[in-house]
């Protein structure tokens, strides 16, 4: 299943992190460098496999670890309303 960035979430990269703003509430949150790589991939429309590849290109982790990190991150971001699941 794909994920997408909801229209009320505004985000900007700064240094090697991304900062997210919920424009409905004014609250904001940062993502660490590895989460940023995942976010930028998914926000660019990539699927989860491509996002994992992007993490493997940048960080010295196993594919299993990268996939597990992505699963946890996506689950958390969806639960917090920062990502939403789409069709496909």
């Amino acid at each position: 299943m794909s994920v997408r960035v909801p229209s009320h979430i505004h985000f900007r990269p700064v240094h090697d992190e991304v900062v997210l703003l919920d424009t409905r509430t004014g609250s904001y949150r940062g993502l660490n460098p590895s989460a940023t790589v995942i976010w930028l991939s998914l926000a660019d429309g990539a699927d989860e496999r491509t996002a994992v590849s992007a993490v493997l290109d940048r960080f010295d982790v196993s594919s299993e670890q990268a996939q597990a990190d992505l699963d946890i991150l996506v689950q958390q971001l969806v639960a917090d309303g920062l990502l939403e699941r789409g069709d496909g």
Partner: protein
Amino acid sequence: MAYELFGHVASSDLWLPLPISRRRPSVQVVLGSVIETGELIWREPSPSSFACFKDDGAVIVSWPEVRFRVGFDRVVVDTNDDESAADLLVPAVWSVLLALRGQEALHGCAVEQSGRALAILGDSGAGKSTVGHMLIKRGWRVVTDDLLTVDAEGDVQPGPPFLRLNPNQRRQQVQTLDTGGKVRMYGPTCTRRVPLGALIVLAPEYRRPRRLTGMAAASALLTQNYNPLPIHSDHARRRFDMAVDLAGRVPVYGAPPRSLTAVALDQLISEAFT
């Protein structure tokens, strides 16, 4: 009389403690009648008893002794106390006008040396102006105090040509206080916009002076917005973009309030400006 103020020229019926301008005014400040009307968007209890309303594209900001109706290019001032009105117009009410013009502001002062500005941000009492004063005594010049605006090119806009300090209890001579209970310290000033070289945020969460990056830098700046008023429907996004832009463009440091010694300041400036 016309005055320079944060990149704008204002003609004003009130005397303002600002550099005189010969440029054509883009904002009029006039004396007149202002009534509290429209949608209440902010109210603070006593002792400030401040209230703010949105009405037909204008913003009404109201204190017991003075009321302002702020539009895009015209500010109406209703007061019997010109001095208090001038103190409130610069910079508090001006921040509302800037917000109406799409420009957000930070709470801090800026000083300049060798064509670069250092901005010091923090809550009231954090020691912003004290750090500024320390640098003025060492040859820096005042760019602005209290309200800090940075334009799209990354330049600090000149504001009030003085620093506002807490009164020195040990000093024997009479000290004249402004409406906010501060003493104005006039010194050498920089009256042109100047590139911002670094920002220091004075806040208790920092145990020692340190460089902030990424989210930590953006978050430090997001806590230092001058104006919390929801004046514009997109204010959260504009304030966010300003903070993130600055965090990505300029070195940001955090330091504990009232902590910076001359030595620590020298180290920080040397690192930031090298």
